[in-house]
């Protein structure tokens, strides 16, 4: 029996990823469901306890965006009528609460309280807005009521990227720090002759189709090293620090996302919250 149990646990370790995911989901939605419900309740309580002043400031900020875009929206609607185009998909973002299980091996992953019922799909980008909107990670698995995502510190994370002025293209990958929480982002595959200045905003390029174009990822901090004679690498200061996130936006696949990023980024730059270059795009 002992040998059988050890063999069984080795089999579990080497099961295909899909089977492991189904097994995990089965346990999460049955035996462990009461604990995730407690987690949701705690998150809701924390949300209600957030500073009313901060929420009011965010409301004012959003109100200003809506007010300034009202004319544009009306113009857009009129042009769409003239061109006989269909209405845009009304919901582009889904708001979600983020939970992190504190168990061993769950680092770099998170749970969201939204699922297929809200239209969330595997591969949808997960964003967070704190001053400026930025890329946190992506959805990896979805069930009806909740979804599982990985943040940018996960070893499997990678995003094709470019400078916000679309002049230089590369690839952003995580690098483990000397300790947990010290993970950093590295911009790789930059041509040697291209030199990036500290503070340059790096956004997703949309190449490869994983992330939509234009989502801010980080700002150039310093040159890491030259890869031989031909390419350079740069450390980035991430726009979103995964450990601080409790509420996120899941971006549904939609071509209108780029415009929304520009709008949100433009507002962030105007209010000078980040104090760095705006990256609002054209």
């Amino acid at each position, binding site marked *: *029996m*002992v040998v059988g*149990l*050890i063999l*069984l*646990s*080795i089999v*579990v*370790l*080497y*099961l295909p990823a899909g089977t*492991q*995911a189904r*097994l*995990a989901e089965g*346990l*999460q939605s049955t*035996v*462990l469901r009461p*604990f*995730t419900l*407690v*987690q949701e309740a*705690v998150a809701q309580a924390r949300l209600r306890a957030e500073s009313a002043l901060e929420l009011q400031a965010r409301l004012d900020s959003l109100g200003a965006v809506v007010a300034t875009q009202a004319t544009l929206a009306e113009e857009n609607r009129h042009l769409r009528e003239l061109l006989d185009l269909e209405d845009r998909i009304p919901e582009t973002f889904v708001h979600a609460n983020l*939970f*992190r*299980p*504190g*168990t*061993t*091996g*769950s*680092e*770099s*992953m998170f749970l969201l309280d939204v699922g297929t019922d809200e239209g969330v799909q595997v591969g949808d980008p997960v964003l967070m807005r704190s001053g400026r909107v930025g890329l946190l990670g992506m959805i*990896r698995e979805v069930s009806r009521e909740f979804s*599982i995502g*990985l943040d940018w510190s*996960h*070893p499997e994370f990678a995003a094709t990227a470019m400078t916000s002025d679309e002049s230089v293209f590369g690839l952003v990958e995580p690098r*483990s720090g*000397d*300790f*947990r929480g010290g993970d950093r982002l590295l911009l790789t595959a930059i041509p040697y002759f291209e030199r990036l200045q500290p503070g340059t905003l790096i956004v997703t390029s949309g190449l490869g189709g994983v992330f939509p174009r234009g989502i801010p990822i980080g700002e150039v901090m310093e040159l890491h090293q030259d890869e031989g004679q031909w390419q350079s690498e740069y450390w980035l200061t991430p726009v979103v620090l995964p450990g601080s996130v409790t509420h996120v936006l899941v971006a549904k696949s939609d071509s209108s996302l780029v415009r929304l990023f520009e709008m949100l980024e433009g507002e962030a730059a105007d209010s000078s919250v980040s104090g760095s270059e705006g990256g609002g795009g054209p």
Partner: protein
Amino acid sequence: MTRRTVLGFLVPALVVLHFLFHVGFSIQGWAPDLLVLALLLAAREVGMGAGGALGFTFGLLEDAFSWLAFGASALSMTLIGVLGSRTRELFVGDSPLFFFAYLTLGKFLKDLIYWLVAASSVKGPFLETVVLHGGLGALYVALVGLGLVSLFGGFRSLS
């Protein structure tokens, strides 16, 4: 109260508290690994097969949130359950010192096995993960275990 009665209450309670702290309240570093503590307490009372089965079950529950190394907890805790049961035949310990050493080594060994079987791309540096965090975590679990056993009637009646 007999030793088995105490453990029959304590072990399930520790399992529930472990998931309540780690999942329900998302406490990561400050909450001790009560799942390993429950396993080590129970393993001293059962045979190797039952110890292994208990370890496998506990490990699989832990793995439900372990997307980076699914199965690593199941394997490491199965082995700890088996080894913990084996210690009953090898060591007849009922002193606080033995109990402290048993819990410390048990938790440290669990973290070591976990580190060994987890994929290389996801595990942290050995010194930081196993020696530093593993060592401190093991001492923490042992201290909590000592406290609980004292609370429930001392070492002679429980361990």
